C-alpha cells in the first residue's frame, strides 16, 4: 500500500483518548518504520461534547504526504468504530475505495453486524473484536467519578493517564494492525500499555472476508 488513510469514529470526550491513541500509535509506528505518517483529530468535531461522534485520522504513505493540510480523510481505506452502537445511523463508510477494512468494537459477530453497515459492498473484510470484554473494561460502569475528572473537553491536554492504549484501544489497535498490516505488530507492541489485551485480541478477532465491488 503506497498511501493509506485510517479514520477512527469515536464518542466525544469519554472515548476521545481511545480514538487518539489508535491514530497516534499507528502513525508513530509507521514513522519508526521509515514511512511518512500523520495523525490528527478532526478539527471541526472539536471541541466535542460527551458521546457525540468525533473522528480521528491517520495517514501512512511511502512518499511525502502532500495533502498534509487537508483536514479530513476523503478516501479512508480503514475505518474503526470505537463504540459498537455507532454502526448504524450515519454514513461513516463514505469515500471508502473498494477493498477497505471496517473494524468494530462489538460483542456481535460480523455475520450479524454486516446488515447495519452502509455501503458494505466496498469492504474486503469486516472485523469484529469485543474490545470492552478483552480489555476488562469496567470503568464505564464502576469508575465514572474518576472518568469525569480525567476525561475533559481539552483535546487530551488535561488527561492524567499518559500511557498509550491502557484500555479498549489496545484490542482495537491489535485488530487494525493484524488485519491490514498498516504497520508491523512488532513495531507497535512496545508502545501499548495494555499488552495483555493487545495479545489476547490477536487470538480473538472475528474476521469476515468479503468480495468488494466498485461503489
Amino acid at each position, binding site marked *: 500500500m503506497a498511501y493509506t488513510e485510517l479514520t477512527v469514529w469515536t464518542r466525544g470526550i469519554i472515548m476521545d483518548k481511545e480514538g487518539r491513541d489508535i491514530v497516534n500509535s499507528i502513525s*508513530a509506528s509507521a514513522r519508526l518504520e521509515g514511512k511518512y505518517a*500523520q*495523525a*490528527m*483529530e478532526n*478539527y*471541526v468535531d*472539536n*471541541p466535542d461534547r460527551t458521546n457525540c461522534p468525533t473522528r480521528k485520522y491517520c495517514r501512512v504513505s511511502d512518499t*511525502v504526504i*502532500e*495533502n*498534509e*493540510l*487537508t*483536514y479530513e480523510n476523503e478516501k479512508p481505506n480503514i475505518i474503526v468504530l470505537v463504540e459498537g452502537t455507532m454502526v448504524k445511523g450515519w454514513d461513516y463508510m463514505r469515500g471508502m475505495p473498494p477493498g477497505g477494512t471496517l473494524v468494530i468494537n462489538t460483542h456481535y459477530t460480523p455475520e450479524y453486524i454486516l446488515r447495519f453497515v452502509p455501503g458494505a459492498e466496498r469492504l474486503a473484510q469486516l472485523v469484529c473484536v469485543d474490545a470492552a470484554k478483552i480489555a476488562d473494561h469496567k470503568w464505564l460502569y464502576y469508575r465514572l467519578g474518576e472518568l469525569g475528572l480525567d476525561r475533559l473537553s*481539552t*483535546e487530551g*491536554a*488535561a488527561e492524567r493517564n499518559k500511557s498509550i492504549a491502557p484500555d479498549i484501544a489496545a484490542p482495537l489497535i491489535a485488530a487494525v494492525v493484524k488485519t491490514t498490516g498498516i504497520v508491523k505488530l512488532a513495531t507497535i507492541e512496545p508502545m501499548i500499555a495494555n499488552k495483555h489485551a493487545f495479545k489476547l485480541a490477536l487470538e480473538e478477532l472475528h474476521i469476515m472476508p468479503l468480495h468488494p465491488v466498485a461503489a
Partner: protein
Amino acid sequence: MATATEVKKRTVRINGCVASAQAAKYADVDVIAAYPIRPYTATMMALAQMVANGELDAEYIVADSEHSQLSISHGASSSGARVFTGSSGVGVQFAYELYSPISGSRMPVQMMIADRTLDPPGDFGSEHTDALSTRDMGWLMGWACDAQEAFDNHLMAYRIGEDPRVLLPQMVCQDGFFVSHITSDVELPDSGQVKEFLPPYKHPYPLDPRHPVSHGPQIMPEQGPPLQLERARAMEGAVAVIEEVHDEFAKIFGRRYDPWVEEYMTDDADVVFFLQGGHAVTARFAIKHMRDNGLKVGMVRLRTIRPYPTDRVNEVLSKFKVVGVIETNMGLGSVSSGGVLYGEVCAALYESQHKPLVLSFMAGMGGEAIVLDEFYWMAKKMTEAQKRGKIEKRTHWVGFEE
C-alpha cells in the same frame, strides 16, 4: 559560546500550539494571561500544565475576557515582567481597545495568535483577518508556516520587541489548524542557547514605587505629535534590529530565516504566488509539480508584515511578470474588493520600473485547505494574464469561477 555541534539537540513531534507554549517556557516568561478560545487554547492548556508541574515559574492568570487578558498584560509588562498572552478570531477583536495603548506605552507584550475566522462564518478555520485588522496598531507582526518556525518566531520576537531601540509589542501569528493543530518535528534548543540569545527582560522605566514614573497619563494635544512620531520611529527602527536578530538567531540556533520574505523556486520564475502562513506548505508541492510540467512558477512568502518591508517587496516582486496574491483575509470594499494584501503589494510596487501584473486570489476562506488543484487553477489564471499582457480582473474567488 557553544558551537552547533556541542549543543544538545532534542527533536519532539508537536503541533503549533504546543510549540508556542514551549517557546514561552524557553523564554522563561513571568506572567501568562489566559482566556480560552479555539484554536489557540491548546497553547494555554500546555502552559497551565507546565506551571502546575513546576517546569515553568510564572504567574498564570485566568482573565475573564480577552479585554482583561490584554489589560493584565499591559499592567504586568509595565511593572517589568516578560508577558505572554494570546487569542484567536473574535477574541483578538474583543481586546482591540488595548492594542494602541500597549504599543503607545512601548510595552513589549507578546501575543500568540492562531488565526480563526471572524463571524461570519465563525467556524474554527483560519482566515488572517483577525490579526490583520489590527495591523496598524503599532505591533510587530508576522506569520509562521510550520510549528518549528512558530517556535523560532516567538523567541526572535521577544528579542526584537524588548530591544531598547524598539520596545514594541509583538503578534506572533500562525494559521489555526494548518499550523496550530498539525504535528511536525520541532527541534527544541538547549536552554543555554536561549539564555545566550534572549537576555532577561529589563524595561528602562518600569512602574516601581521606589522610582516613581508615570505611564500613559492624559496629555495635551500639543504633546500628541511627538509621542506619535516616536512610536512611528520605533517601528521604522525595528527594521535594522529585526535583521540583526535573525542573523544572531542563525548563528546560535543554526536555522537561518530571511526576516522579510521566503523565496521558493523564484530564480527563473515568470509567475509567483505571494502569501503568508501555512498554505505555503501545499504551495511548495504544487510548484514542484508545475515545474515538472515546465511552468516557470515560484512563491514569495511574506514573513513579516509589520514593519512592512516595502523596498524589499518592491525589489523581489519586480523580477516577475505576474504576481498572484493569495489573501486568506477579508478586505471588504478594499482596493481590490478582495483582501488587504493586494493593496500592500501594489503600493510597494508603485515606484518599480518593472511592474508585474498583480492578481488577487480569494482562497482558503473559512479555513478551507487550499488544495493542489486550486494552486494549479490560480497558476493558469496567472499565465493567461501573462500571455494577454493584462489582467482580466483584480480579484478571483477561487472555486467560484471557471
